[in-house]
């Protein structure tokens, strides 16, 4: 059930009415949240309900046990927390990577001359497993790090794990930030709720008017790259990061908006990534809830472990972290290469001491970005687009064939409809980001007017209704 479908609208209206009838009765609201979250998940894939239910129950008890150890014996607590984290990760490893490991080993053995007759079987991956697993792992590790207490209220914990706006594709909320919200009266002040409506509409706009429309062009080129040359492939490569951004930030903004309408603050996921001046800054602005998670649980432990190796230790920690980011997206070497590519781009930044250095955009005359900053933004964008070409490809050989195809000549221009709509919509998106980045007084969708008098919002809704694509399309990150 996509956020931009009629079915979801009806589902949400029912949830919203029932949920807010019980204002100030947190426990009942948590029950409603839990029931609707399981309903939402069950409608998508009923068979997978036992997976999330069993994992939730198991992690609830693991959390209590870890807390027990933390109070008595640090070493035992550490060992048990590691065991618990692995236990939480096992279903993800099985559903997402089992066939990949088997295939890779079979290929390795046959390359070495051994005859292998290992066969794999079809495994259906539960939707959203990459996202709710990370919520569970974060929970057990935070208790062990004494950053939070184990949750006693099972319903609140289960509602956190299955929270329907975020279960399919994030953002990945941290338990120590999200769970306390479920224990208190929900925010219902006017500006908090109306901001939620605006974020939802903005996400809906970038999804249906930019990502879906742009996707038609990008898919047409990449799925038939043999028919095109440098011109169309080049344009598709340059458009794909924008499509991803419009799609995934669209989903995230809709999730944050729905969360706000339930009186809950959901984690930020994007901060105008294409204004980044280098790749390290790009990762501080892109899919923030995932990179923050990996920084805390992969990068930091590795960096601490390798701390006596100096820059080499830092490079190792960064590269391993980014390869993990890559493989998190799926069991394919293309994702691993995508991560490695980014990891290698960090090396010059580490060696020059610029990795964590805050960059500042110079605004000429107060409103124009300086050419030097523009150049850095452009270079970062090109590097990101190149890495995403591998990310988008079905296999490494397909990625290299796509690149090779660019050297066959300019080729023809891919002709699909809707270009004017997505280009116009894209200008609105870029204008909004530009205004927000520059902290100008005027910002699209930040008026103080009541919703029904907010002309910008009304115009945007009318635009969406007229110019959205015909079919409801899945969000890209649902597959991860």
């Amino acid at each position: 059930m996509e956020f931009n479908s009629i079915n979801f609208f009806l589902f949400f209206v029912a949830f919203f009415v029932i949920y807010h009838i019980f204002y100030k009765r947190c426990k009942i609201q948590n029950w409603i949240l839990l029931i609707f979250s399981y309903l939402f998940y069950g409608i998508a894939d009923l068979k997978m309900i036992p997976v999330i239910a069993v994992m939730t129950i198991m992690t609830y008890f693991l959390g209590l046990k870890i807390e027990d150890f933390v109070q008595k014996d640090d070493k035992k607590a550490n060992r048990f927390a590691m065991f618990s984290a692995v236990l939480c990760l096992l279903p993800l490893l099985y559903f997402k990577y089992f066939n990949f490991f088997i295939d890779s080993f079979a290929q390795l053995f046959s390359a070495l001359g051994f005859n292998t007759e290992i066969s794999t079987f079809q495994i259906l991956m539960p939707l959203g497993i990459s996202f709710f697993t990370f919520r569970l792992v974060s929970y057990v590790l935070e208790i062990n790090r004494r950053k939070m207490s184990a949750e006693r209220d099972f319903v609140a914990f289960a509602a956190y794990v299955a929270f329907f706006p975020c279960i399919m594709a994030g953002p990945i909320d941290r338990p120590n930030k999200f769970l306390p919200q479920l224990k208190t009266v929900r925010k219902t002040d006017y500006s908090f709720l109306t901001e939620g409506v605006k974020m939802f509409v903005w996400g809906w706009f970038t999804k249906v008017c930019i990502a879906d429309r742009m996707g038609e062009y990008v898919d047409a080129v990449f799925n038939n790259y043999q028919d095109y040359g440098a011109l169309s492939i080049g344009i598709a490569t340059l458009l794909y990061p924008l499509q991803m951004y419009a799609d995934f930030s669209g989903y995230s903004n809709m999730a944050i908006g729905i969360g706000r309408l339930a009186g809950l603050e959901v984690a930020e996921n994007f901060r105008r990534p294409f204004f980044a001046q280098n790749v390290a800054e790009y990762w501080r602005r892109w899919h923030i809830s995932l990179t923050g998670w990996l920084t805390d649980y992969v990068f930091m432990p590795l960096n601490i472990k390798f701390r006596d190796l100096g820059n080499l230790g830092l490079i190792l920690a960064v590269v391993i972290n980014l390869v993990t980011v890559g493989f998190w997206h799926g069991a394919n070497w293309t994702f691993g290469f995508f991560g490695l590519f980014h990891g290698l781009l960090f090396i010059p930044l580490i060696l020059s001491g610029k990795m964590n250095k805050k960059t500042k955009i110079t605004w000429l005359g107060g409103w124009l970005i300086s050419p030097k900053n523009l150049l850095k933004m452009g270079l970062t964008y090109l590097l990101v687009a190149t890495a995403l070409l591998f990310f988008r490809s079905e296999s490494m050989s397909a990625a290299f064939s796509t690149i090779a195809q660019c050297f066959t000549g300019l080729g023809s221009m891919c002709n699909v409809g809707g270009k004017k709509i997505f280009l116009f919509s894209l200008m609105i998106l870029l204008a909004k980001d530009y205004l927000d980045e520059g902290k100008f007084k005027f910002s699209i969708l930040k008026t103080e007017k009541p919703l029904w008098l907010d002309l910008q919002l009304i115009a945007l809704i009318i635009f969406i209704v007229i110019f959205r694509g015909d079919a409801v399309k899945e969000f890209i990150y649902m597959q991860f």
Partner: protein
Amino acid sequence: MEKSEILSQVTEIFRDVLDNEEIVLADTTTANDIEEWDSLSHIQLIVAIEKDFKIKFTSAEILSWKNVGEMIDNISKKLA
């Protein structure tokens, strides 16, 4: 070694590593309170503290600190 002595020695290390003479540490200080204290300088601080006090922390110890006070307690425990 008294905890107050450890705190003043650690403060000196912070000022040196983060290149900011105005840093004043208290038990409740966290990374949010000092602009230069990020994930990378955190590791540099740990390496410098370990070298200065001739001690070695475990990863679990480092990851469990919530503020400077907990770090000082940990150093004090190691020196005892």
